């Protein structure tokens, strides 16, 4: 049995989501190969070769792979699937974009965002914003799986798998990369951060969001997240959104500030180890999941908290 894992990377670096997906693939069983498709992705391929338990890395270079667009990825991966029993990818924006295309072409039902693997055909996955956990048994000959990375530990980095290169399909493809606007920050990345401070609608403006959240984050060495309401209002960029339809996180410490705790938000953070809520409404639902709740005006207590750390 063999599993192909699609690596999530930025060309220059491999994302930690890949290590977690390898752990999930190993729980599924069989040999695990990792595909690194990119442009100038030699470093990412080298990093993938170090992941424990990887049989080999397949490194593909091509201009169309710079942003790993789905159409080009399909052309590359579909012909490879003859040699694999399963395709695994992290449920990142890349994995979510690419995998269903391949599943459809293989005529199999994708199993999205699995949180547990019981053998080679049975998987657990959250549905209804994590309000229910469904166990499904797949009758398809090949499995296509996206992995909720917060549910799996990152595989270690003491391996030394061989790196094979493979040719990129010629193209052209029906989609082309035009541009990107990458949010730059020196803070840790949200999905792999050990600590997160997350701000909601109560912050009131982009200016105050930055003024109150950033110094606290910096004191804690934390990443900054946000509720949908804060993102919609333009206080924070879209990639800060935590929740059912944003990023799913599970840090050691999650501090929710001026966030009410709608089910869609809880879906993205309720597996955090310690949750702190700061909210002036003592009835706010966020307190139902918080280990420590402080009923107070954030504009008063957040500076105090920052000061006292």
């Amino acid at each position, binding site marked *: 049995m063999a599993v192909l894992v699609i690596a999530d990377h930025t060309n220059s670096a491999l994302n930690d989501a890949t290590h977690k997906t390898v752990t999930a693939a190993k729980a599924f069983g069989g040999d695990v190969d990792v595909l690194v498709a990119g442009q100038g992705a030699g470093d990412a391929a080298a990093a993938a070769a170090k992941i424990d338990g990887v049989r080999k890395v397949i490194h593909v270079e091509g201009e169309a792979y710079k942003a790993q667009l*789905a159409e080009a990825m*399909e052309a590359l991966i579909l012909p490879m699937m003859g040699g694999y029993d399963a395709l695994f990818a992290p449920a990142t924006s890349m994995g979510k974009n690419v995998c*269903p295309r391949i599943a459809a072409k293989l005529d199999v039902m994708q199993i999205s965002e699995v949180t547990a693997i019981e053998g080679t055909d049975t998987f657990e996955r959250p549905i*209804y914003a994590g309000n229910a*956990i469904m166990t499904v048994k*797949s009758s398809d000959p090949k499995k296509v799986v996206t992995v909720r990375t917060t549910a799996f530990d990152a595989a270690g980095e003491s391996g030394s798998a061989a790196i094979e290169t493979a040719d990129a399909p010629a193209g052209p493809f029906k989609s*082309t*990369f*035009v541009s990107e606007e990458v949010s730059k920050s020196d803070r840790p990345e949200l999905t792999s951060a050990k600590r997160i401070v997350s701000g909601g609608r109560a912050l009131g403006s982009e200016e105050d969001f930055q003024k109150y959240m950033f110094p606290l984050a910096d004191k804690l060495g934390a990443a900054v997240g946000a509720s949908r309401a804060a993102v919609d209002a333009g206080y924070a960029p*879209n990639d800060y959104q935590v929740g059912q339809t944003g990023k799913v996180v599970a840090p050691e410490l999650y501090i929710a500030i001026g966030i009410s705790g709608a089910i869609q938000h809880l879906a993205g953070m309720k597996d955090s180890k310690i949750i702190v809520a700061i909210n002036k409404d003592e009835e706010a639902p966020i307190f139902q999941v918080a280990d420590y709740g402080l009923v107070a005006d954030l504009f008063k207590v957040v500076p105090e908290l920052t000061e006292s750390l």
Partner: protein
Amino acid sequence: MKVLVPVKRVIDYNVKPRVKPDQTGVDLANVKMSMNPFCEIAVEEAVRLKEKGVATEIVVVSIGVQQAQETLRTALAMGADRGILVKTEGDVEPLAVAKILKGVVEAESPELVILGKQAIDDDSNQTGQMLAALLDWPQGTFASEVTVDGGKVSVTREVDGGLQTVALDGPAVVTTDLRLNEPRYASLPNIMKAKKKPIDEKSPDDFGVDVSPRLAVVKVSEPPARQAGEKVEDVAALVAKLKSAGAI
């Protein structure tokens, strides 16, 4: 240009879903059902394209039980022109939905299909991508901005690192993210008008699609409940708690 918008009837997003005691699923009896919020955004986008003179006709399609007709009516009241109900006994998996939608696309020849990125019940996030694959069309998923210029569709996508813009050679599939637009409420006159708009009824057989599930549901269970902790008096007490818990 003709635009096709698939809309799904799901549990209303304000309702907290309850798992059935026998673990066979989520209890939907007497629960408020609505259009999936991402599908509302898709309908709104199509209506705006029509208002700009880009779209000429908007066809909405839903695959589901008879009551999915109400969801189609909502879309018609927002400004879609006609509906297609593909009637099924119960829920259909995304792969079968995508196959039925492929049949609808072949019959209707739209140049753009706009879907939601995700249905908030199954949280699958796959139907649009599957449809694009089956049609061999390009896809612009998780869209926060869509512009149509002749045969080209430019889509700005919400991705993990920020925003990404791709150019698609139409016909194309687009899936909507939250920031694409804010859907309108249908006005009373438009709700009345929508009652007269046509809804065609079809079956999966009309498209030669076998809807038998590939994933058998073994069980549906409650997630482990998280206990509410304690309230602390002030910042000093909070800091002390976090220190003793080893969190800071």
